[in-house]
């Protein structure tokens, strides 16, 4: 952890600050949320790394998808993700967001979350223990350092594709496109 390297702070303060002040939107997605309270309470104190839970997406920059994603939850996840300010990072916990995990043959769960919102990193497990969560966070720091945690940039660049996937599932989402100019004219009308 290079939080005390003053030279790095002076060179790129925004990057260092994004690393050591990850405020997670407290969105309880699936069964994995049971592993988050131990992470943020006294035994495995995540606050010493600067990780805090916040109530609204407007204040957060880390989105943890903790477990399987059902259709109903996906709509809320998309809305919450779009309301977060850039730069933002998404971390998926467990095997369900990767390939459906335990619910691989269910009609109601999403098998590949990456089609609908961009995911920066995955943490394997079902559910990952707090130690695994911390290792995942350090990997996220490395990605941020290298500039590879660019899910939000990907979302903006390929928004048309993401929106198309979302609308294929839900039909009318209930809110207008986040980046309207990126959708070609014939798609916006459809």
């Amino acid at each position, binding site marked *: 952890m290079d939080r005390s390297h003053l030279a790095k702070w002076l060179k790129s303060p925004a990057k260092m600050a994004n690393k050591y002040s990850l405020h997670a939107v407290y969105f309880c997605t699936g069964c994995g949320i049971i592993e988050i309270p131990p992470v943020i309470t006294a035994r495995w104190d995540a606050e010493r790394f600067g990780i805090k839970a916040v109530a*609204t997406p407007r204040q957060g920059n880390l989105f943890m998808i903790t477990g399987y994603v059902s259709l109903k939850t996906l709509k809320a996840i998309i809305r919450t993700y779009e309301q977060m300010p850039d730069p933002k990072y998404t971390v998926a916990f467990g095997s369900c967001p990767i390939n459906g995990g335990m619910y691989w043959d269910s009609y109601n769960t999403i098998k590949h979350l990456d089609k609908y919102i961009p995911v920066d990193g995955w943490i394997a497990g079902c559910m990952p223990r707090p130690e695994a969560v911390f290792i995942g966070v350090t990997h996220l720091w490395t990605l941020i350092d290298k500039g590879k945690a660019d899910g939000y940039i990907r979302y903006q660049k390929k928004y048309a594709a993401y929106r198309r996937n979302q609308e294929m599932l839900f039909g009318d989402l209930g809110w207008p496109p986040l980046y309207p100019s990126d959708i070609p004219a014939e798609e916006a009308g459809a």
Partner: protein
Amino acid sequence: MLPTTILIVAFASAGLVYLAGKVHARLRNALAVLSSLVLVGLIGLGYGAWGELVYVPDFLGLELVLRLNLLAWFFAITVAAVVSLSTIFSLSYMRRKESANFHYSATLAVEGAMLGIVFAGDLLSFFIFWEIMSWSAYLLISCNRGRALEAGLKYIIMSLVGSCGMLIGLLAVYTGLGVLRIPLVAEGMQAASPGFVLLVLLTFGLGFGIKSAMVPLHTWLPDAHSEAASPFSAVLSGVLIKMGIYGFVLLMYVVVGLKLLFGVGAAWLTFRHVLCWLGAITVVIPTFIAVLQTDAKRLLAWSSIGQIGYIILGLSFGTSLAVAGAIFHALNHALCKSLLFLAVGAVEHNTGGVRDLNKLGGLAKRMPVTFACALLAGLGLIGIPLTSGFVPKWLIYRSLIEDGYPFLALASLIGTWGAILYVYKLLHNIFLGQLPEKHREVRRAPLSMRIPILLLGLGILVFGVVPGIPLRVVQAIGETFGFARLKVTLWGLASEAGALNVLNICLAIVIAFVVVFLIMRLGAKGPQVSQEDSYAAGSAVPVGRYHYTVDFFGPLSRMIAPYLKDRVDEFYSWVGARARDVFSVTRRMYTGYAGTYVLYIISFLALLIFLQSVWKVW
């Protein structure tokens, strides 16, 4: 001379406007606006002039006198300014209303009567103009029909009770002192007995207390001000109740005078103490009743009662700072309250008559100018620095604290906090939050509504940043009453009695604002979003219904509502109901049958003959 010209112009234009209305609406509108502006100009010319003029040499053996001095000028210019702006506002508000003709001419008549009150140089003229003002205001309040009729009736009955009190006081002065001209009455009072002075104070005080809506004489105000048409509500709250204040000032400091005033009454139950405490109660209780209201105009009406409490508290406290603060607050409240009533009137006009705070919202986007000025007026009522409300409230608090009356200071400070609550409730429920679907197409306030609102807002801002302008006039008025001179600078006070420098505060706020704004620009800029993109726990926001207005201060309302029922109003209604019961019994005397009346006459004659023959009474 100037006062006579002014009064003639006012009353003549009232009549001419009515006649012009029969000819053409545009002519009437132009004439009304022109005459109100001419009146402002004429009064402005009278700044600094002094003089008396006998305008009716022989009225039942008395002379009727008009006079002009700084106190009269101060109140006259406030009256003229507020009425002229209200008339300009009525151009749009009263368009296509049947009572428009009457409204314009009666407003000018009320203005003429108010100017007559402030220019009156003897008590009889004062009383005559007072009565003209009372009944023309009554007619104008009842103009709206419906609930306004009841409201007007309550107003006129209470006003008549006050006027009877004043008449008794007038007669007492005439029989006791033999003169009615105010300077001569003042001289005569110095030699009068304390009991006589107390009688005069109480009888005139009853009339003035009812007109200025002091607790417990306030019950007419909430109904009357909320049911009148909005431009006239602005005049009512802005300047009509200040006539009661002018009456108090005249009574306490010109007629009775400083030396006598503090000695009236027994040991600690002096007139001054009682009035101070009535003022303190008037500040606290109506302010919190205002917090509970859900009708915008009723909230403003209760707020008026609360702010008048400040003025009465300052006047009755009687130090130079307190009186200066009270008179300045009269000006400040006139500006702020008339602006708020005009703003609520503009909203009511544009939304088709909606005044219910539970049904409005988000109008700041559709009516930005109205919102900005209403915000200024609200902050002026609270007394935030940079508005014209800061200095008068500072003066009153300072005076109360330094002279060792912390409980009165506590009451006034709590009143300020209540004011913050209801001002925010009003602004939030009308202008902030989400815009309901049905008000999505509300247009901006028309130009003739925006102009008075902007001018009043400008006045609040200017008098807030440069309080020396009104402070100089107020201070000079205080000197005529015999108070010590205050060193007034352009930006505040520099005397040993209290130091206040508004310029430092203003500059500090402006510089801090600029610095913080520049710091904010350093941060990353995001897009601007509409009201549909609001946090709703991951779901889409229901269109225009994601708004919190109902029961806005719920927990507080539930706690204090049981203690804040208007028991005085209930008491008066109870008295009225019992009187009605008595009258419904005594009315049986009128049988409608001529034979009973003949029987009454003959029995009464028989009684008289019996008395004469037995006891030889005559």
